[in-house]
């Protein structure tokens, strides 16, 4: 493969990616991680060869010279043409099912797919499903991020100054471990306010009154964090809105 040809191929692939070829994108990402090689056939008519990510199906764009950028229409046409060609070669098959099978270690039919390439998807999940390809590391990251949010809430909950308080009062003084905040009972009619209130309304009320600080907007990072901490303390308690 000449370096020149390679560059042309990449340029065309970029054009397709920009189109948002949803089916192809996750595969392309995975391919990047695994560093597979897909030898692209040489162009016969001086155009640019584009290969489908099965590593086998390819077409040549005759009017796209090396160094030229494909237009959106061209990219769309190429994607359609590639998929049509693949379908012609694989009558009765479904692209996603076939790709999942090809990438599984059992199949191992493709010499370009290493054994480690098994997706995190459970059997029955299809390639492209949002939750199909997450790893245990992803879950750890999510948990860590969530805990950081909750911990920030805990910090503010216990810090009169962070709450904007002016008389030294913080939430934990009346609500150790977030007790007696019963977030699961909101929304409910708050008799003293004479209207239906959400948890955040009560947090704000507490900040304004016993804490003696300025109220926070519903989007305030501190209010959101407080809400996160309070809710986190009630994990497992059934929701029971309107309860008194």
């Amino acid at each position, binding site marked *: 493969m000449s370096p020149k040809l390679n560059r042309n191929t990449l340029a065309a692939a970029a054009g397709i990616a920009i189109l948002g070829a949803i089916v192809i994108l996750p595969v392309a990402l995975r391919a990047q991680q695994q560093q597979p090689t897909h030898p692209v056939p040489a162009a016969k008519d001086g155009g640019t060869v584009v290969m489908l990510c099965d590593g086998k199906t390819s077409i040549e764009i005759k009017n796209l010279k090396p160094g030229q950028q494909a237009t959106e229409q061209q990219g769309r046409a190429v994607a359609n043409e590639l998929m049509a060609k693949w379908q012609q070669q694989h009558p009765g098959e479904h692209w996603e099912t076939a790709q999942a099978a090809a990438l599984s270690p059992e199949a191992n039919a493709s010499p370009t797919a290493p054994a480690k390439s098994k997706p995190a998807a459970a059997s029955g999940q299809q390639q492209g499903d949002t939750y199909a390809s997450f790893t245990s590391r992803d879950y750890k990251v999510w948990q860590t991020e969530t805990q950081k949010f909750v911990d920030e809430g805990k910090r503010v909950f216990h810090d009169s100054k962070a709450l904007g308080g002016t008389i030294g009062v913080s939430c934990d003084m009346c609500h150790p471990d977030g007790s*007696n905040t019963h977030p699961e009972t909101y929304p409910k009619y708050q008799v003293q306010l004479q209207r239906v209130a959400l948890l955040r309304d009560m947090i704000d009320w507490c900040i304004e009154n016993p804490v003696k600080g300025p109220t926070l907007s519903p989007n305030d990072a501190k209010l959101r964090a407080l809400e996160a901490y309070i809710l986190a303390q009630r994990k497992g308690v059934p929701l029971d809105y309107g309860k008194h």
Partner: protein
Amino acid sequence: MAARHKSVETKFMEEREEVLRGLRGLDRRSFLKVVAATAGAVMAKGLIAPHSFQLVTIANAAVEKGTSTNGMAGQPPFTFAYISDTHLYERTLNQRFIRGALKAVEDVNALDPQPDFVLFGGDLAQLGTAEELELGQQILGEVKAPIKMMVGEHDWFLDMGDKWQELFGPPNYSFEWKGVHVVVLMSVHEKDFWTARKMTPQQRMGTVAGLDNGIQSRFEVGDEEREWLKNDLAKVPTTTPILVFSHSPLYKYYRNWNFWTDDAEQVQAILRPYDKVTVIHGHTHQMLFNQIANISFYGMLSTAWPWPYAPQGLPALTVQMNRADPFDQFDACGNGRMNVRADGLVDKIYNLWDRNPVTVKADYLRSRGKTYRPPAPQFATY
């Protein structure tokens, strides 16, 4: 929300501010006269009932005649009151808790007849500073009856009790009162958690001041003071009624919040030979009572804020108070009074502000809940 929905407390504060503006010209003496006159006018109009915290003389008369169900009229009955857990900040920072403390002082001064003495149950200050403790001393100085002081952890851990002892004397002591042996304990010692963490005195105090942190040690009476207690009781006959004042509960309720005394069993063992032992404790800011063998325990109310009931460990004999209305600063706070009966047992009256008082009789605890059960709350803990 703030602009359209003013809370009860906000409205109260605004009205108060307005009244104070009008009164600014008056000196203190005239101001007090105005307040008294206003209160008198309100009473005369029947807008509020005469304070429910007055002594109930009929009940006392029955005890005086020795007709109490537990018999044995050994010594004259007497009454003492308490104020506890005021958690005062410096006056320039926070007036909310000063209002609570002053309200309690008014209450005990209004008692007629006056109690023999007023126990202060500990946690006079919030962060243990000299200014806070001196403010507390000044406020308690308005109490007409003699004061018996007890220390709490909020008074202690900034300077390890230096200022408190300078103002109020030794933290543990005992005295005889009308045939009852009264012991005041310093029961909030903690094992050193601060040196290894290189904490400043302020950090140490701040840690102890928080309930829901696992950093601080648990409360204890400690080896030295338990020895002192043994020696103190050595000369006291086992038939003598014993009254123990302790800031921490002297039993194990909920460890995570330090509603807890680590050497509780050992202290209870020292008190075991006595037939009639009553422990009055602070710290838990709620209606709380318990009976362990020969010992009846009563928790005191705070004037600053109520604590929620802990998720575990609540004594089975405790009847919860209704949960607090956060929109009412004084709700579920209060003070109280103890009637020490002729037989040396103690009936306790919880003077819950803005609510009906609740009496918990010694007979309720001694019968393990079979008689005189206080009314159940309408709204218990969530």
